[in-house]
């Protein structure tokens, strides 16, 4: 078995005195797609925030490429190649598409900014057409492309995508999942945090089901997809 790229062990965290994650263990191997599925409020975004250093873990360890990162600042975690595309896109609305992309390489990949920007434009020709347009004026789908493009500018080794399909039309969701496969085919490991169960399980190799701050089910994605209890019990569908 390949050594894990990301190894999370016994992660507890929350806000104020409310515990949200109550002991989470999982790993992502190099060039793997792993999906974490859960309903609203299960703790998915809290988990991605903790991995990226935005929310401090209360207990547990997070190792990336064998280094402990649970006490590292977000910028330092980015510098190591663990890049998150956050829920809600979080693009810079007052800046142009091109400026948004260039800021993706603020910490990492700066010397290859032009090469990487052209690569992003070849993946998303729409962004190339709109590069001098203010990001806030883009459609929801284009904003999601921009958020992912900005993440790719930092040359991720592991890309966390937090609910990328949220608010997109079914057609765009189809495109998005094809894109995720293509990104992964370039050797980038993907941690896909989603509510979109069917399509996430199709692209992922392994899956974890998060419910109430704990993993209640985990295994190969194909096997999870056939679990009779999955949707009814844990995803409220």
């Amino acid at each position, binding site marked *: 078995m390949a050594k894990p790229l990301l190894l999370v062990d016994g992660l507890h965290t929350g806000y104020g005195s409310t515990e949200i994650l109550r002991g989470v263990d999982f790993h992502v191997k190099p060039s793997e797609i792993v999906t974490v599925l859960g309903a609203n409020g299960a703790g998915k975004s809290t988990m991605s925030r903790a991995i990226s250093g935005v929310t401090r873990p209360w207990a547990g360890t997070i190792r990336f490429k064998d280094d402990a990162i649970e006490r590292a600042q977000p*910028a330092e975690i*980015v510098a190591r190649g663990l890049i998150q595309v956050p829920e809600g*896109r*979080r693009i*810079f609305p007052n*800046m142009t598409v091109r400026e948004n992309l*260039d*800021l993706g390489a*603020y910490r990492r990949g700066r010397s290859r900014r032009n090469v990487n920007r052209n690569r992003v434009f070849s993946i998303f020709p729409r962004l190339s057409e709109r590069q001098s347009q203010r990001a806030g004026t883009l459609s929801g789908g284009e904003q999601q492309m921009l958020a992912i493009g900005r993440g790719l500018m930092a040359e991720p080794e592991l890309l966390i995508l937090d609910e990328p399909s949220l608010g997109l039309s079914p057609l765009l969701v189809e495109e998005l999942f094809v894109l995720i496969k293509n990104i992964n085919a370039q050797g980038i490991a993907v941690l896909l945090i989603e509510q979109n169960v069917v399509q996430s399980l199709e692209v992922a190799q392994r899956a974890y089901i998060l419910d109430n701050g704990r993993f209640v089910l985990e295994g190969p994605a194909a096997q999870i997809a056939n679990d009779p209890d999955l949707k009814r019990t844990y995803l409220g569908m």
Partner: protein
Amino acid sequence: MLSPVILVPALLNGLMTGAIYALIALGLTLIYGVLHIINFAHGTLLTAAMFAAFFAYALVGLDPYLAVLIIAPLFFLIGYGLQRFIIGPTAHGEDRNYLLVTLGLAIIIENLLLYVFRADTRTINLPYAFDVIEIGTAFLAVPRVIAFVAVLVVASVLWIFMQWTDTGKAIRAVAKEKLGAELAGIDVAHIHAVTFGLGTACVAIAACLLIPTYYVNPTAGDAFVLIAFTIVVLGGMGSILGALVGGLFVGVVESFSSMFLGQSLGQIGIFVMFIVMLLVRPSGLFGEQA
């Protein structure tokens, strides 16, 4: 009373005064725009910088226009340090903490200045302080013309810095989308401190431009900052262009109202205009509509 012989000099003098207001407001609006806090220590930092400029001249004979090359970077570092090591760590991102911490700093700095320098009012006498330039019917004091030009240069440099450099772009990114910036690898605490440093450097430059024609005592900066607050709201909170235009505008309003109402009532015009502005366009001249 309304002849151009009187109005033109009043207009030009208003612009000269307004330029200094604009520079102080620029620092304030920059800090507000990025950290979303009202920096109550702005006025005392201005006073402190005026003392620095005063003593640079009084003790070592350094001309304020040369001293600015040392005082501005020095106050950048002071501002950076205050935000990075005192304001940021104590405020924990809470608005009311920012308010109390900056207010507390203001009280501490002001009282330190009072303790060390007493309440005496000090002035410097530069050989060229009373030189004038004649423009049409107006006689303009040389230091005020220098200040006007300097402020335009500083505002332009700041604007170019914000638009075209990586650090400037990072500042704008943090201003609008802090989480997005963090996840793009921008060190938010550092950017906050750089912004506070830049705002403080603005008041340091203003101090060096003021000291040739103004006095300094431990509360000298307060009068300017009240007007600067008005300008920040008038120009639109966080807008660099708004601070510049608003500052010049307020200077002109003050100049005209002191001409018509008398010197001691000159500032009434500013606040009347300010109240009208709040009624008509509460987001300010260049502010974003809510």
